[in-house]
């Protein structure tokens, strides 16, 4: 287990409860700037999130955000980041998972949260992380013809893929 910086010797009750609930699946945790964060094994995403959602004292019933961070130099390249929120207790938890570039697959949490549907589609669209069990995993912000995943660090910002050339409405001679 790794404890990161942040200067908090004492864990918050939320983080403590989450750590004991996810016992054996946690690979690290920290509370940098007061944001409780746990790192969990990717294969455990669905069961772990379900446990966090159903636990009485935690009750994380609202999935605020799901996104991905790309670390191309790491062995496990993609970091899937979930932000959970409890409408009952008003506390938050960040849960992170790591997947590799060769097999960028992680269980979907669409059975638990409706909002996971679109956010996981966006994560797939932008990073190419596959969410196993997602009912409708297709591109959402970009178009079907788009090749590659634009928010990966190795995708060049200027590498545009226009579907058609700009039109000048006859202001140029070449337009005839």
């Amino acid at each position: 287990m790794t404890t990161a910086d942040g200067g908090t010797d004492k864990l918050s009750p939320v983080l403590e409860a989450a750590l004991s609930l996810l016992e054996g699946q946690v690979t690290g945790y920290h509370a940098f700037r007061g944001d409780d964060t746990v790192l969990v094994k990717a294969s455990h995403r669905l069961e772990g999130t379900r446990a966090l959602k159903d636990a009485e004292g935690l009750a994380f019933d609202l999935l605020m955000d799901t996104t991905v961070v790309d670390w191309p130099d790491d062995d496990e390249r993609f970091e899937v980041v979930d932000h959970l929120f409890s409408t009952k207790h008003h506390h938050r938890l960040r849960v992170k998972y790591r997947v590799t570039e060769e097999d960028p697959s992680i269980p979907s949490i669409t059975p638990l949260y409706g909002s996971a549907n679109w956010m996981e589609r966006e994560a797939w669209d932008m990073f190419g992380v596959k969410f196993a069990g997602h009912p409708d995993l297709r591109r959402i912000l970009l178009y079907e013809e788009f090749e590659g995943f634009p928010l990966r660090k190795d995708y060049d910002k200027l590498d545009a893929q226009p579907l058609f050339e700009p039109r000048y409405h006859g202001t140029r001679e070449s337009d005839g």
Partner: protein
Amino acid sequence: MSIPTSEYPYDVGGEFVPIPGRDKYVLHRIYPDEEDEDLANRTVINIGPSHPAMHGTIKIIGELDGETIVGVDVHPGYLHRGFAKECEAHTYHQCIPYTDRLNYCSPLINNFCWVEAIEKLFDVEVPRRCNLIRMYLAEYSRITDHLTCLGAALMELGALTPFLYMIEVRDWMWEHICHVTGARLTQTYARIGGLARDVDDAWLDRAMQILEENLKVCLGRVHGLVQHNRIFLDRMRGIGLMKAADAISYGYTGPVLRGCGVGLDVRKYAPYELYDEVEFDVPIGKYGDNYDRYFVRMREIEESLKICRQLDPMIRATNGQEITVDDSRMTLPPKSEVYSNIEALMNHFKLIMEGTRPPKGETYLAHEGGNGELGFYIVSDGTGFPYRARCRPPSFIHMGGIHLQLLGSQVADIVPIFGQINMIGGECDR
């Protein structure tokens, strides 16, 4: 003129009839060429993105049985400009103008959320006066946001006069914000560790004049025009129903969630800035229909007005105090110093060329935006450029659950449902 009562005006004639049998419809992807017996009686229509009601940025493919929507597939993304990718290539300060263009009905709320996320990474406290002005302008922006949303939504129902009243006041407010920020729409007023410039008493006087006179008259007139209007009530009540449990499951926040009867407000349960020093109520709806969302927004304008009224003397009491932190890691030195000593010149140069460099780490900061929880998740690798800048967009997430409201409704109901979700293209598609 007094604002009509803010009690829940549900007993205004007529009966509340929920849509029968909505539960039997489910979300599914629409394949017009699929072999399906039912399809023989159904029509597939394509609304948008070039449709005035879709704000030019959303496509809705609807499957109709007569006039009833029985299948729906929502396509966002027509305004995707790569906010996150652009941020990664710019310094933290250079990203501030990009945040203006997320929710362009209340740019200042985006500005403040962005810079406060970076201040959280630095772990610095901004001066009291700075916090007070940020709160004042955030509430001021929330009013313009709600006025735009409600005015446009009413106009789409055919009520042009409330739209004109509301947009008139909104534009006075924007012109007035322009006097302090230098821009009417893309305001870029926040700075990491402070604000671009100070406000003075004369500006506050005029702000309160707009709020206390023009806005109040506007609200009174709009209430008078639509509150007992049969057409308005019939098209709003019982339409676009959303259960509280569904709303939570689909990540709804802000006025849309409060319309469903869940009283969650970031300003209340986790007060940032100095929201614990002001008093305000969190209005909630009852049934989660269009009318509730309209009602919650109207009441929130009054609550924002209440907050502004409390902040006004508090800001005046701090006249002359600093509005930026004195921290060379993020604040530009004064020009007189830059031109007279080498340390300040170097500091200026480094901040401009390399950017402000927060410590390594990650943070998520949430503000109560105009239409829901606006959050920024920033990962810093210790350089002047954000390693990852993620905006948690309320509009996008609300659009992910809009099919629940659309299924079982009539085609004509798409417009008011869509209007009350208040989808802002810039924020939805980023």
